[in-house]
């Protein structure tokens, strides 16, 4: 935003249109509100007392428990496996969809967009129980494979978002030049379109991964024994509450999400 002369009111007082009354405190309040539960979780993950709310003394024992807890390792492994596969597949399908959608006719496009956008509009519980019904009808045993399919499906719209946004911003010039020089469709795709889209594809993949890792409702309904993901496991822990241990896991996940976010910011800044 460029600096312009600060306007003055009719009475000659300096008025800064960038400062509205009450906005500053509201903003600080909102930030405080957004972060206080997270800060609490981090702080109390170091509480040595078994009863969460009462602070006893500083201790890292709950982190120790997390690391020696086999069930958590298993749940984490499941989450990562499902996450990686879902991210890979959904990103690939999202790229294909983004490119194909550009030239689809109205009717097909509407159907495609409806199918892709469905997870965004329809409450997850509906798709989760529908997927359960699907797997039973088809006879797929409830397990990791089914979970991967389900996750891929609802990750596609998230992977698609940045890609479509970027596509609509692309300048036509390189494409026209390549066409003029005689490049065919595949070459343009490989050498121009995809490289130009690369940052958006990366952003889409990151988004898809985050969505998959954090997913709860679908994983809760569709996962069978041996396919428990981390959120489902944490939910079970919260239900029976060994509180400080849950805070420890939550803090670790916080660190993970935070580093991924910071990492992607740094990567994007480097590209510029």
């Amino acid at each position, binding site marked *: 935003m460029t600096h312009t002369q600060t306007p003055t009111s009719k009475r000659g007082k300096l008025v800064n249109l960038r400062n509205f009354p009450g906005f500053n405190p509201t*903003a600080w309040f909102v930030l405080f509100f*957004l972060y206080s539960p997270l800060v609490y979780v981090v702080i109390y993950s170091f509480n040595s007392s078994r009863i969460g709310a009462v602070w006893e003394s500083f201790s890292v024992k709950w982190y120790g428990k997390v690391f020696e807890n086999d069930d958590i390792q298993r749940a984490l492994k499941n989450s990562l496996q499902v996450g990686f596969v879902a991210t890979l597949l959904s990103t690939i399908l999202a790229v294909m969809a983004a490119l194909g959608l550009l030239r*689809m006719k109205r009717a097909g496009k509407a*159907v495609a967009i409806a199918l892709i956008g469905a997870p965004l*509009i329809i409450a997850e519980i509906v798709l989760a*129980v529908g997927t359960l019904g*699907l797997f039973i009808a088809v006879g797929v045993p409830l397990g990791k494979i089914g979970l991967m399919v389900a996750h891929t499906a609802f990750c596609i719209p998230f992977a698609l978002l940045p890609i479509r946004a970027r596509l609509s911003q692309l300048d036509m010039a390189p494409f026209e030049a390549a066409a003029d020089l005689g490049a065919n469709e595949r070459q*343009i795709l490989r050498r121009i379109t995809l490289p130009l889209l690369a940052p958006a594809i990366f952003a889409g993949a990151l988004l898809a991964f985050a969505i998959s890792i954090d997913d709860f409702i679908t994983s809760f309904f569709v996962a069978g024994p041996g396919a428990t993901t981390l959120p489902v496991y944490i939910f079970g822990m919260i239900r029976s509450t060994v509180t400080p241990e*849950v805070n420890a896991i939550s803090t670790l996940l916080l660190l993970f999400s*935070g580093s991924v976010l910071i990492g992607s910011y740094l990567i994007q800044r480097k590209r510029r």
Partner: protein
Amino acid sequence: MTATTSAPKSDSKRLENRARPGQSSPKLAYLPIIFLAFAIGVPLLIIVIYSFLEKPSQGTGVKWVFTTENYKALFIQQKLDGTTSLDTRYIKVLWTSFIYSLITTIVTLILSVPVAMWIATRDARRRTLLVALVTLPFWISILIRTYGMRQIIADEGPIGKFLSLFNIDWSILYSPPATILGLIYVFLPFMILPIYASAERFDFRLAEAAYDLGAKKLTVVRKIILPSIRPGIISGVALVFIPALGSFLQSDMLGGGKTNMVANVIANNFGQARNWPFGSALAVLLIVLTLLFILIIQGVSQRRGDKVELV
């Protein structure tokens, strides 16, 4: 969902408008569409079909007998004494979900507009940091955020302990306000970010010009700033209201395990209550209501010249 004001087309020609050699074929989209038809379309179809079937005697699953009883059961209750009466239970559940979502949307809107405007008017470096700060919670699992909120508003949590110093009784966990608070907390970033995206693009020189021309500050806000960020507001409203309507965790973890929101009732029917057809009917109703809401949003925004896109 994104809403954009239809601005005049910029100079750089848009990729989609010209069929030219070298562009990717629409056939590329076939594989994703087929996959989604199977992974999303079929489950939805199954839900619709199940809603017209009967419940088998031993509970789980469906009996392949056509019936409209499930839809009737949403509104009419076959009481134990044999009489039928208007069933307010599920209407209440739908109403509760609607009200909670409405309150959540309004409160987040009221909080988000100032915050988004404030961030947009900071200098560039602080802006990046602030946007990152607002975005980070968005990336943290809703489960963890809801759980963190639960610990904060617990009776013996920090708020309760602080207020007990003044002998004020603090007991809101496991009650409707707790659920709503949880919804607001979880969905706040969903409202801030789209409004910020709009606010960032707003050129403040317009506001200053208006001010120079003699408009009062409030008028500037009302007639210039707000209309410009309206697309962001519409996106935000959609991004908050729709998921809040279908939310599950907040009522379960903060409301005391009660089933008073739609998603909880549906989940219960596919779980302990073992009435899949009825759960499906309720799910269909939820879908219909959501689509209705989207149509309203599209209608409202299109009349004002905005374009609303799903993805």
